[in-house]
């Protein structure tokens, strides 16, 4: 069991900066998910923590000890790879026992650990099989088993579910969550799928272009994104973003103008001045119902996606902004028709011209 802390971690290949100035503290037993678009540096950050890449600058501590110079094996970590990386010529049992053989663990102990891990992961019947005789889900479990037997302080997962089909992915996701509860170990998980991030994490780290954009609990990020990037990345379907302008500022509220309508929002104006360009963010689920303080926005329907319990109505407003409305499942709407979205007075996010939320940290 160990906490992990990163101070000013940077990584560059020649002049290409992959990671810049990463500061992050991960508490013992936390489930932290690094999420971001591909190429944002999340996997590199994970590999740096594992010791497979060297940080160009900064300090990395695991369990309070500086580990920058340590090889992976001494960091008490175990990593599960996206490709599973099972040794193809070894049986399931040998795959799991292979690393222990060199850690001076006695034979009986190795056997006990492997069998326990196999039991946890329901692999007991498959111990003599070769990886090629296993299904994708089983291979994934062997890869996790190989991590468990090492009894590491920190588990590292590099997009472990991306090679599985949809149904199996949901299942394995639940199993990983259960595993985390049972083992209580620190887990760091990399994914580009924000649904995995939301469902698994006790803390999400949103990354973009080698930088951390925001760190927080899933719902905290969902309700209180720090900037446009996080607002757009967390939540599915993504948050609607509508261009607007500040009409007037008075004390604790700001009046915004957009699409020919005006609304007053209770936010600390901060540096906002009358005339500033802003972006207004609204979640699709907040735009379906008319209410006392809502503003009706007319538009033409581009597409309707029916999921059963809800329908996503994709529409174009008169201003040209595209918005998605999460409407009731049986809503009457068809492409080409007219539809009315309702902009609430509450639950609005206001971002200044630099893309920063003006509400954040209020």
């Amino acid at each position, binding site marked *: 069991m160990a906490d992990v802390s990163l101070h000013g971690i940077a990584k560059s290949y020649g002049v290409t900066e992959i990671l810049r100035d990463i500061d992050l503290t991960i508490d013992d037993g936390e489930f932290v998910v690094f999420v971001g678009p591909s190429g944002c540096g999340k996997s590199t950050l994970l*590999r740096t923590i*594992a*010791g*497979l890449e060297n940080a160009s600058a900064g300090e990395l501590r695991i369990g309070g000890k500086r580990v920058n110079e340590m*090889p*992976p*094996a*001494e960091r008490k*970590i*175990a*990593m599960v*790879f*996206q*490709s*599973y*990386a*099972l*040794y*193809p*010529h070894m049986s399931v049992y040998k795959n799991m026992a*292979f*690393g222990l053989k*060199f*850690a001076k663990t006695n034979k009986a102990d190795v056997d006990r650990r492997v069998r326990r891990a196999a039991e946890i992961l329901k692999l007991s019947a498959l111990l003599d099989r*070769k*990886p*090629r*005789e*296993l299904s*994708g889900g089983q*291979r994934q479990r062997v890869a996790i088993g*190989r991590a468990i037997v*090492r009894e590491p302080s920190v588990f590292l997962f590099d997009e472990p579910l991306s*090679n599985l089909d949809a149904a199996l992915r949901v299942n394995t996701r639940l199993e990983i969550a259960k595993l985390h509860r049972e083992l209580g170990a620190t887990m760091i998980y990399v994914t580009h799928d924000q649904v995995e991030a939301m469902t698994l994490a006790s803390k999400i780290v949103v990354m973009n272009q080698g930088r951390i954009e925001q760190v927080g609990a899933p719902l905290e990020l969902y309700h209180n994104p720090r900037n446009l990037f996080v607002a757009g990345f967390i939540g599915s379907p993504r948050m609607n973003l509508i261009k607007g302008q500040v009409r007037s500022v008075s004390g604790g509220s700001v009046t915004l103008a957009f699409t020919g309508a005006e609304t007053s929002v209770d936010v600390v104006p901060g540096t906002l001045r009358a005339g500033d360009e802003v972006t207004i963010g609204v979640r699709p689920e907040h735009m379906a119902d008319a209410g006392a303080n809502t503003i009706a926005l007319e538009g033409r329907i581009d597409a309707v996606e029916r999921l059963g319990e809800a329908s996503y109505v994709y529409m174009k407003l008169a201003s040209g902004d595209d918005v998605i409305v999460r409407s009731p499942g049986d809503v009457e709407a068809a492409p080409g028709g007219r539809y009315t979205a309702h902009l609430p007075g509450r639950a609005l996010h206001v971002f200044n011209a630099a893309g920063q939320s003006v509400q954040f940290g209020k």
Partner: protein
Amino acid sequence: MRPNIRPGRIAVHIALVLYTILAIGPIALILINAFKTRRAIFSDPLGFPDARTFTTIGFDQVFTKSDFGLYFVNSLTVTVVSLGLIILIGAMAAWALTEYRFRGNTIIALYMAIGIMVPIRLGSVSILRMMVELNLVNTLTALVLVYVAQGLPLAILILGEFIQQIPRDLRDAARCDGVSEYRIFASIILPLITPAIATVAVFTMVPIWNDLWFPLILAPGDGKQTVTLGVQQFIGQYVTDWNAVLASLTLAIAPILVLYLLFSRYLVRGLTAGAVK
């Protein structure tokens, strides 16, 4: 009931059959004529031996007039030891050159590539001089050294190519497991490149076994001849004992055939199946 066969396929098969006949022909010719009388060899070279023409006189000659057993052991020793060294050193060098980035990496790789392009026989004179200096003339060691040098460049090229195809994650996983670099090489890389090793073995083994040039100039002395050199004594300026020549060639084909069958089992196997998706 057969599905109709496309003419293209027939053409391909005809070509393959013709090539097979061309490749097997000389060997078959050696085999059938080794068991015939001298008269039959010349009057009917393509005929099979029958009751009238069958003889094993060639084999008797080989075993009584020459030290065939010794030549055979010499050939086998030189081939097996060279092969072992080429594979071991070649695999390690290929692993180092593909896996680790170090100063001079590219230069060494290029230097090895030159070895493929320049025939080692061009250096025969210097090699002979060097062996004289080293007091290695008329030893099997001299032959082994030359053959290792001759086989290494191609071995490194082929093995390096295969090692590169082993997924990076496998080595990273082993490193996370705390496996040492030597262990990774021995327990993960080597088992996974057995098909490549078999390929290299077949490609290097045949030229070594068949070589006449280096045995002739480096180890022609008594007791150190290889089979190919030993056969030469039956080929005279005026008279050639064809029975003996063909018999010893027949005997020389056997071990190479066995080794080939042994390695060829691995040639087609794809061992990485199931490693990663």
